[in-house]
């Protein structure tokens, strides 16, 4: 009597182990660090951007040259001019002899502001209580022009207050303007959170989408999809290196902004890092979503640049206040993750507020992260059908 034992046709298949997953993550790191330019761009871009934006792109107007037309040349006009001379915003370039020269001066582009005093300035002021001074600025750059005239008006008002500080006017209302949190109106206070929002979005979204698109282009993605690796494993392995690099970038940006640009971290550093990590997740998810829709590196690059960067720069409040945007754009700005991230960063870094203050931004960013990750994983799977 014989017994037949039937063996399973195939040996039992083992599940994918952790170190196999790590091999895959390691491969992603090789892709990044073996491409010298990618490495340089990834690690230096934040530094360059921060320095550029932090130092140069500022709404502060310093050392503007001022020309003066002063037919009076009396104690009052001299007093006002002295105010300008001692201000760090202005340099008194000199006097002109006739108002006709003004236009020629502006055309040369050297002068930012012209002060025109009326005749017999001090005399009129003392006797009639009225004297005129005209401020002429170059309106072709409205922001600078309004900032300059605002500074100049403040200086003139200051002089008026000082000289009127006489006993016959006991009841005087002097508005004293104090700008909270950013008393010296430093531009970096606005730009550093913006640059942080931009860099993290750029690194995470652009690099993730490009690296997945590259695998589609070279055909390796197809091989991975046929393999027993689950699509979620492929996605996570793709995302891990960029997550690490983003954390390095976050550190660089924070260190630079505190020690080089003099940004304060008034609130909790832990909270700042925590909210940044959530923002990084949102950006990574956006990158995945883009890569699930495109097959070519070039398209991924363009979409990340156009669809992500422009709105981040234009609509997040980094350059233009969100309140000033026209209706539709203001409405659109609500879906820009960078906007909420910037608000939260400003609250934590500059205003030094705690978690309750950023709870709204936290909830919004978290919902965006969940929504985007779900959508991109779904799309990624759908693409396999």
């Amino acid at each position: 009597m014989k017994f037949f034992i039937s063996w399973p046709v195939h040996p039992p298949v083992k599940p994918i182990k952790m170190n196999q997953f790590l091999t895959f993550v390691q491969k992603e790191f090789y892709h990044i660090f073996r491409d010298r330019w990618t490495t340089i761009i990834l690690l230096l871009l934040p530094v360059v951007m921060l320095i550029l934006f932090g130092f140069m792109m500022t709404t502060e107007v310093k050392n503007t040259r001022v020309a003066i037309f002063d037919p009076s040349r009396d104690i009052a006009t001299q007093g006002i001019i002295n105010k300008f001379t001692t201000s760090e915003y202005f340099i008194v370039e000199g006097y002109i002899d006739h108002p006709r020269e003004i236009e020629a001066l502006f055309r040369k582009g050297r002068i930012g502001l012209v002060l025109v005093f009326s005749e017999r300035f001090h005399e009129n002021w003392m006797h009639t209580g009225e004297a005129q001074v005209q401020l002429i600025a170059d309106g072709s750059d409205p922001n600078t022009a309004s900032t300059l005239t605002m500074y100049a008006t403040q200086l003139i008002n200051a002089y008026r207050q000082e000289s009127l500080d006489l006993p016959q006017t006991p009841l005087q209302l002097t508005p004293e303007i104090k700008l909270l949190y950013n008393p010296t109106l430093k531009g970096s206070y606005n730009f550093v959170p913006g640059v942080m929002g931009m860099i993290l979005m750029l690194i995470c979204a652009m690099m993730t989408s490009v690296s997945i698109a590259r695998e589609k282009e070279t055909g390796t993605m197809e091989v991975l999809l046929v393999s027993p690796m689950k699509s979620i494993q492929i996605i996570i392995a793709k995302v891990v290196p960029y997550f690490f690099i983003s954390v390095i970038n976050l550190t660089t940006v924070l260190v630079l902004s505190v020690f080089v640009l003099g940004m304060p971290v008034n609130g909790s550093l832990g909270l700042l890092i925590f909210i940044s990590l959530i923002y990084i997740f949102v950006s990574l998810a956006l990158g995945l979503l883009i890569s699930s829709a495109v097959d070519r590196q070039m398209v991924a690059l363009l979409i990340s640049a156009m669809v992500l960067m422009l709105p981040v720069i234009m609509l997040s409040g980094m350059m233009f206040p969100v309140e000033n945007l026209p209706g539709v754009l203001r409405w659109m700005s609500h879906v820009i993750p960078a906007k909420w991230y910037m608000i939260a960063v400003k609250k934590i870094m500059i205003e030094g507020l705690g978690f309750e203050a950023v709870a709204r931004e936290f909830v919004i960013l978290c919902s965006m992260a969940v929504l985007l990750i779900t959508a991109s994983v779904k799309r990624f799977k759908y693409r396999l059908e």
Partner: protein
Amino acid sequence: MKSTTRDIVISAQQLTKKFGRFTAVDAISFDVYKGEIFGFLGANGAGKTTAMRMLSGLSAATSGRATVAGYDINTQPEQIKKTIGYMSQKFALYDDLKVWENIRLYAGIYGVPEKEIAPRTDRLLEQLGFENERNTMVKSLPLGWKQKLAFSVAIFHEPTVVFLDEPTGGVDPAARRNFWEMIYDAAARGITVFATTHYMDEAEYCDRVSIMVDGKIEALDSPVQLKQTYNARTMDEVFHQLARTSTRKAD
């Protein structure tokens, strides 16, 4: 008739894939046996890639059923993925990884036990004569070498079936012959080879070929039988007689 005692490794019955109103694969049925080299022929757009994607678990069938290595493609695609190998027409290796790193990576993905990877890598490199290329970046290998490496990587985990999607594209005839030697070796070891191609000289190397026209399998037999049936001297003539009936434009 083939003997029924041979193990069937791939079996398709009325396998169909529709994209909207377009029927890419129209109710195809065939069996592939263990250790066989099965040529899957068809003009571009005939539906062979779609059929192969269904069999390799990349795409769900609209109707009909098929089994690969005993697993149902509709319900067990994950098991199928573990028992098959796949080589794409782009020799999908990573250019910026070294030769051994590519082997290591795919071995890892397919769950080859950790302690077996190193000795098997050594043996493979020796067989290929690549001992000196262990640390070479794949991007600096000649195309024919990449092709050999891609195939070796695809069967490194000793799959039951290996799917080859136009495996010899862009390679010169001498290298193609060379490559087919490797395919014969694999088949002799019991690995079933399922290959799409449009080089008709390659079709001659297969044990059996099927020819797809407009989503349907129009002919399936050994190259010798097919040439007799269609009264042709070469497979190329067989193919042209069949492909002439096509109404579908190449995609």
